[in-house]
């Protein structure tokens, strides 16, 4: 993403030797990576909070931070797949609610069901809901914003219809299931490790497989992608289905982590998730950004809440600060892009 940084002499060096970029360019690359600002902000926030309250990075503190971020990370990673393909999924909160309730229902109706089976069944249920979005968007070729705003309502309606006043509580589920979000390995909660694994897999998929790169191509220029022979419909469908799958997974983890699941679970989380992806450097109109960035964005947004509470900042300021952060993220992204453009223009003028 940072190729603009390389000066013409570097280009020649690369062309002449065919060698990999040097350490210098690697460092430059790191500094200009889209993920850099958000990562820096996260590190700064954590360090500042820690300096004021050592408890922030205590064993329990770290665990809480990670656990808080886990579910949003999964959702943001899924969402960024969809956003990279120049779509958006607003129904994500409703899918989370449905799948979380499905998890509770499965355990209550089948007390002996193995935990892995619940993961599989509910994730597939999420994938099915995502696929429905994908189907409507690709087959009917209508804007995702409209379709998923529609399914946001429809899914939420069915969640209310299904759940009614029923809520399932932590003790409706086996202890081993709840322990997934309690027990740690090397200080890292199990579900966070799982989420990290998902981030790595999805990052590999988006960065290093043809299907993943196709999604970038589609988001970058959908018409060109069609002319190119990229199966746009199938790829976009895949993006929505994977997003649904991850939302389903997040739903299972939600049920493991929190006390109750019911009709209102997940309401209103969609804009937070989109915000996390945007803060993490995923361009809202597709084509650029990475899932790692989105995951860090999610981490930043959840951490800021904890951090402000820990710092005893008046809670009424928290939301405003989050808003400013989102604006800063997109403005920073824009400034970087403008500077790169200007540099390109001048360099082109020089080369004639």
């Amino acid at each position, binding site marked *: 993403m940072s190729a603009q940084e390389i000066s013409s002499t570097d280009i020649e060096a690369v062309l002449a030797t065919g060698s990999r970029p040097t350490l210098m360019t690697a460092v430059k690359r790191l500094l200009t990576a889209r993920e850099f600002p958000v990562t820096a902000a996260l590190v700064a926030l954590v360090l500042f909070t820690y300096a004021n309250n050592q408890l922030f990075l205590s064993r329990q503190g770290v665990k809480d931070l990670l656990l808080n971020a886990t579910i949003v990370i999964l959702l943001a990673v899924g969402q960024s797949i969809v956003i990279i393909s120049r779509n958006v999924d607003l129904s994500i909160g409703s899918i989370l609610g449905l799948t979380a309730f499905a998890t509770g229902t499965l355990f209550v109706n089948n007390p002996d069901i193995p935990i892995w089976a619940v993961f599989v069944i509910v994730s597939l249920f999420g994938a099915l809901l995502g696929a429905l979005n994908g189907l409507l968007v690709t087959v009917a070729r209508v804007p995702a914003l409209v379709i998923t705003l529609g399914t946001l309502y429809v899914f939420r309606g069915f969640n209310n219809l299904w759940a009614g*006043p029923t809520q399932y509580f932590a003790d409706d589920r086996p202890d081993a299931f709840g322990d997934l979000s309690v027990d740690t390995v090397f200080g890292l909660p199990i579900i966070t490790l799982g989420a990290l694994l998902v981030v790595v897999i999805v990052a590999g998929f988006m960065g290093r497989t043809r299907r993943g790169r196709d999604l970038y191509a589609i988001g970058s220029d959908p018409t060109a992608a069609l002319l190119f022979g990229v199966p746009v419909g199938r790829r976009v469908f895949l993006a929505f289905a994977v997003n649904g799958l991850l939302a389903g997974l997040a739903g299972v983890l939600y049920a493991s982590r929190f*006390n109750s699941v019911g009709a209102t679970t997940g309401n209103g989380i969609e804009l937070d998730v989109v915000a996390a992806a945007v803060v993490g450097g995923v361009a809202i109109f597709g084509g650029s950004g990475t899932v790692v960035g989105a995951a860090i964005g999610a981490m930043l947004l959840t951490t800021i809440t904890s951090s402000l509470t*820990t710092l005893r900042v008046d809670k009424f300021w928290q939301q405003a600060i989050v808003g400013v952060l989102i604006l800063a993220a997109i403005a920073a992204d824009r400034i970087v892009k403008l500077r790169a453009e200007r540099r390109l223009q001048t360099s082109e003028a020089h080369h004639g």
Partner: protein
Amino acid sequence: MKSSTRAGEANHWRRLTSLIGLLAVLALVAAACGSDSTTAEPASDGSAEDGAGSGDSDGTSDVNDLSITYIPKQLNNPYTNVVLGGGEGGAAEAGFEGIAVVGPLDASASSQVSFINAETQAGTDVIVIAANDPDAVGPALQEARDGGAKIVAFDSDTNPDFRDVFISQVVAKDVALIQVELIAEQIGGAGQIAILSATANATNQNEWIKFIEEELASNPDYADIELVATVYGDDDDTKSFQEAQGLLQAYPDLKGIISPTTVGIAATGRYLSTSEYKGQVALTGLGLPNEMRPFVKDGTVTAFALWDPAQLGYVAAYAGRALAAGEISGAEGDTFTAGELGERTVGEGGIVIVGPPTVFNAGNIDNYDF
């Protein structure tokens, strides 16, 4: 030339389908309306039967086709559900012909208004409401009263100007005191405590918090207890969970948490029981036994309190009946019979007290199912 006209026609056909699609959806709505009016009937049948069975209420025989509608803060909430369960039972016993429950899916201040409006128009005789905001529902309730409806507030009061009676759980001060008492006991009478409430605007919560603060300040027994913070979980599981977490981090010396809301106490219980603070930090407040049972069993929570929510709805039904029948006006000193719960008196400010709170602990919690 021709081709473009034909293309135009294709366009028209396309639009015609939109029309058909829209009509199909409208048909769906129609079906929804239809299906509900049929389901509403058995409910009133049931009430008629029950009314005949419990024919001991003597003064009400001349008014037989009264209707009552419950408008809770939010549908699909477990606590509300227990309240409404009691309410529907009570309404049936009290002899109401039409019994309905309507309400918003979210607990925002203004969302109850259009439900009140619809009930006004339906000519409902008694509207029982748990207000999300004491003032926001005021004008709408006033309109309903102008149309002849009796207004019974329950669980969470409206501005007293807009209702006839308020069915209160308990004396607000009792609720506050019992929670202070429980927490003082659990932390050994000294240390920092915090409150995790519902929404910042919740009337009942704020009243209890006020009494808790006063009690802590005035009672010398609690001189060593310091209330360090009040946070709001908005009656949202996730938010309450994270607020609890933040409290513990911000106040490392925190000894106990009071959460006077069922969602908040359960979420905090869940957090404590899964963290290293389990057993270190005391938790009490108002909770539903069914939700709190695991936390009592695993030692996270020693004791908490609550009244019987079902009684709220139950008494509200009888109060509504008495108001609609003209037996009481909601003035202080009026009395009415609340079915099997016996006689109730309208207190100062039109408040009817249901009963004392119960303290639940490991010893008695299995005796309750709500």
